[in-house]
């Protein structure tokens, strides 16, 4: 140990300070950049276990992982940074004593999404005590002091936590150069339990495992750094916090501060989903993760897949179908909207018996998924409820509608078919062909109709355009020489 310490040309006090600072910077920024954190209000979140009460057999991060951290040793601050046991109450939570973190210190977008997505940033287990405020403000360390790798990182999977042997050990009285045999000095700051949490931390050479899964997104820190986008722009004011937790990881609403621009202002900060999200070869987003299905956040165009999503998705899809296509293949839509297997969440059990009432109520709207004259009409003709059903299919002596005296004859009773046609003509179309209507509504004479005029009183002022663009529906009821068409020519 002495030989090892001898390699460091610090006086004892400087060494302590530097070691403490390094460890703090390493671990805090490490946590911040890789993802961790308790809740905004300092309530323990399901996604983060900040302080495990007991650790059976933890392990420090793998040497391979730590080796990727190319952190240079931060400069040692002067003075003894380590004090007494009281210090150990710091660095356990974002704010000392568990105070609520002000929104201003949180990453942008926290107002919209208080917690980072656990699909994107899986739950973590933080087993470290670290005080960023002390290291940054008191000891004047920068983010880069401990996280230099972040400035060159091009992938979200890059390991950005610093190597303790190159940072922490500079001040703290221990040696992490061999993680299989970490040695400690006599100073309190070198004790394993000074930073590592859990009962008997360091006993038997083991500490609780720090679990920070890789985030499920694309992220190029280097590109952002080169554009002078500082760490706080995405991670919040970590320098004002003690422990940096998963809470300091970015929110999509915050990303949109830059990734929602277009044209010259956009630069490379594209707004397309795949700018940040992982995608399948088809270009659609990868949505299935071990922590659940990726879904739109509540605020994004109101597209959160809430419990009533089936009822209200039409408005979102109609106004912004491109958003749906980010995750869903056309087959997902066609399974219902051109479906041949009844979706049970839309049409519940016994739908065959009750669908006539549903159609009358226009709930759900049949034409959203069905061609009324073909899909509906074919079955109605086969069953025999349609008026133009073939002779053998007709249900002799049975009538779907009320009796003719109230359904078709004058005066128009409260149950007259005209009211139903006015309210919901689509329900009529699912059984009736034009011939059924023309029998009464076509003109008398050559058209062989009953001459019952279906047009509103002012119709002649509106008929010119449709007649000129497609006269066919006019000629169903009127002959081409009908004087009544004169106003429409």
């Amino acid at each position, binding site marked *: 140990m002495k030989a090892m310490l001898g390699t460091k040309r610090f006086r004892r006090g400087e060494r302590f300070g530097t070691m403490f600072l390094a460890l703090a910077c390493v671990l805090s920024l490490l946590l911040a950049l890789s993802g961790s954190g308790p809740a905004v209000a300092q309530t323990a979140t399901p996604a983060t276990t900040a302080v495990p009460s007991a650790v059976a057999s933890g392990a420090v991060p793998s040497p391979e992982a730590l080796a990727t951290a190319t952190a240079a040793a931060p400069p040692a601050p002067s003075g003894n940074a380590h004090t007494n046991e009281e210090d150990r109450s710091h660095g356990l939570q974002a704010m000392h004593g568990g105070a609520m973190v002000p929104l201003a210190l949180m990453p942008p977008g926290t107002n919209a*999404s208080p917690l980072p997505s656990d699909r994107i940033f899986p739950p973590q287990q933080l087993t470290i005590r670290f005080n960023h405020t002390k290291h940054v403000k008191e000891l004047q360390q920068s983010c880069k002091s401990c996280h230099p790798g972040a400035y060159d990182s091009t992938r979200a999977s890059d390991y950005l936590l610093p190597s303790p042997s190159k940072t922490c050990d500079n001040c703290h009285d221990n040696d992490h150069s061999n993680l299989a045999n970490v040695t400690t000095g006599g100073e309190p700051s070198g004790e394993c339990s000074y930073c590592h949490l859990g009962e008997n931390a360091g006993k038997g050479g083991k500490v609780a495992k720090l679990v920070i899964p890789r985030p499920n997104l694309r992220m190029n820190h280097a590109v952002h750094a080169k554009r002078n986008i500082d760490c706080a722009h995405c991670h919040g004011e970590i320098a004002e916090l003690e422990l940096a937790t998963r809470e300091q990881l970015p929110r999509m609403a915050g990303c949109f501060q830059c990734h929602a*621009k*277009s*044209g010259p202002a956009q630069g490379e900060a594209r*707004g397309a989903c795949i*700018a940040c999200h992982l995608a399948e*070869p*088809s*270009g659609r987003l990868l949505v299935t993760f071990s922590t659940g299905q990726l879904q739109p956040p509540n605020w994004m*165009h*109101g597209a959160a897949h*809430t*419990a*009533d999503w089936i009822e209200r998705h039409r*408005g979102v899809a109609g*106004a*912004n*179908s491109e958003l749906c296509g980010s995750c869903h293949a*056309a087959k997902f839509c066609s399974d219902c909207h051109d479906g*041949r*297997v009844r979706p*049970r969440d839309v049409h*519940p*059990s016994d739908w*065959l*018996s009750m669908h006539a*009432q549903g159609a009358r*109520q226009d*709930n759900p*709207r049949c034409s959203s998924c069905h*061609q*009324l004259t073909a899909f509906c009409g*074919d079955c109605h003709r*086969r*069953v025999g*409820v349609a008026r*133009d059903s073939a002779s053998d*299919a007709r249900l002799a002596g049975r009538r779907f509608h*009320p009796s003719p005296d109230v359904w078709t004859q*004058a*005066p*128009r009773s*409260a*149950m007259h078919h005209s*009211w139903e046609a*006015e309210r*919901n003509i*689509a329900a009529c179309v699912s059984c009736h*062909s034009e011939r059924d209507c*023309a029998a009464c509504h*076509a003109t008398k004479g050559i058209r062989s109709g*009953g001459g*019952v005029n279906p047009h*509103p*009183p002012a119709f002649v002022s509106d008929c010119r355009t*449709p007649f000129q*663009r497609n006269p*066919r*529906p006019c000629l169903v009821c009127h*002959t081409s020489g009908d004087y009544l068409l004169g106003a429409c020519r």
Partner: protein
Amino acid sequence: MRSSVAASLAGASVLLIQAPALAIDWEVTGDVAAQGYEVVSPWGDVVLGRRRLMSTLGVAAYNLQGDASRPFGPSYSVQVRMRVDADFGIRDGETGYVPADRARFVPGLQIAPVDVMMGYVEGRNLLGGALDFRLGRQYQTNVLGWWSFDGGLVRVNTPYYFALESYGGFEQRGGLPLSTSRYEAQGVWRGAGDDALRQDAHLYPSFQFGAVAPAFGVALETSGLNWIKSRFDYRRVYNTGEAFTGQFAFPDSIGPGSGGYEKVDGLRISSDRIGYSLSAFLDDVGALRGGFVYDLYFGNITRAFVSADYFASSKTTLGIDAEYFLPSFDADSIFNWFTHNPSASAMARIASQPSRSFQFAAQAGTKLWLTEGDPASWAAAQCAAGGYATAEQVSQCLRFGVDSTNAFTDPNNALYAFARSEESRKSDLSADLVANGNASYAWYSGKADLRAMVQTGFGDAATNRGRRAGGTISAQQAIVPGLFWLGGRVSTYDWHDPLRPDRDATSFGYVIAPELQPTQFGKVRVEWEHEMNRLVGHRFRILGLLTMRVAP
């Protein structure tokens, strides 16, 4: 000769072998659904035995350019999906026109129609991201609806917050090869028919044989602004081919040519519509969506909607939705003439997710129906206007009706005059109460959902359009996680229709659905469904569903 062929083959082989390996991603998907159930008429007769087999097969290849490392680099893909939807319960005589035996014939009906759901080549991010294209059968989804056509689409992405899209081709239509009628405008009965049916087409004058339908459209939309999406659409579709106009043969009284039918032919409008939609949000305030569709042929707004969300908290959203809907149809259809009044709905809603595992939502509002005139008082008023002065006369009028011919068609008839007067046709409103409730709870190895609804009218038959109310509880539990699940569903619904009170019923049904995923490439689901109500007694359905996906 033989040696030259061999040399050519060898050369080709060398070229193929030496060609750089392309990292093409591919995907094969498919599903098979087999269903058996009986359709029972409202009077209890078993009228159809359905034995359905539906199968789809999709093949896709992505990143045909080989280099997929650049998310915004040029990329090419090809996708095809086909489907067969057979009903082996269709009886002889229902399909295949035989002039001497058409007692069960249904024009256009097919036992096993095959259609290409989509099949296109796509290029994206070409010319530095400025150009995208699609060529083939493809979907269009926008405020004008969900639509499909065969043709080409080009999209130009500008660096100035907007993109321009243009497309043209032929609408997918029923009756054409490998096509379905799903995407054509409503109101025209179209399908396929053989020569024999075409010879006797006058027997089904409302039926049109499928013919190509040229179509084109343009769209202008915002691009790159995530907080707002705004899109303007215009689309026109033409009808071609022959169609009957008069639905009845010329009467004999008109002399030579009697017994014939009039037809139209040639290019004419099918639909001509513009639409606009807007979706915007402020991430800590709320979201707003809206849009409308204007039918240029019909000359009316056929749909308008607005929806607003207020993010009361990160877990709770309050919202309102309103919609105006006026049915419109293919310009070949006479049903446009019967569309006078819109329906409208207004709903308020709340959706909340108190915890990660539990969420619920509730909606309540009204659906409004407009009529030209008051159904409740119309008949009495019409009788009174027709000179039925005394209460007894009015009663007679109401009870036995009047001379329909005169009342409906004679401009000099007082009843007709009443029916045509603007005063009589003042808009009248009836309203339904609509409410939905949804909740879901998930646990580590399963989930449960509740869906409930009620829609009910009020008053007598003049305004009350009936009631439907009920709910479903469904659940799924993993028995062997990752391998075997068991699902179930219980539902009960009650419905009442004042126009058809003999068909009111209360229904109970349940579904048992085991699901097995023996391999990562696919899973099998079987559903046993049992429904019961007083109209049909007991009814059963069995469904087998196999879904597969194979990809590298």
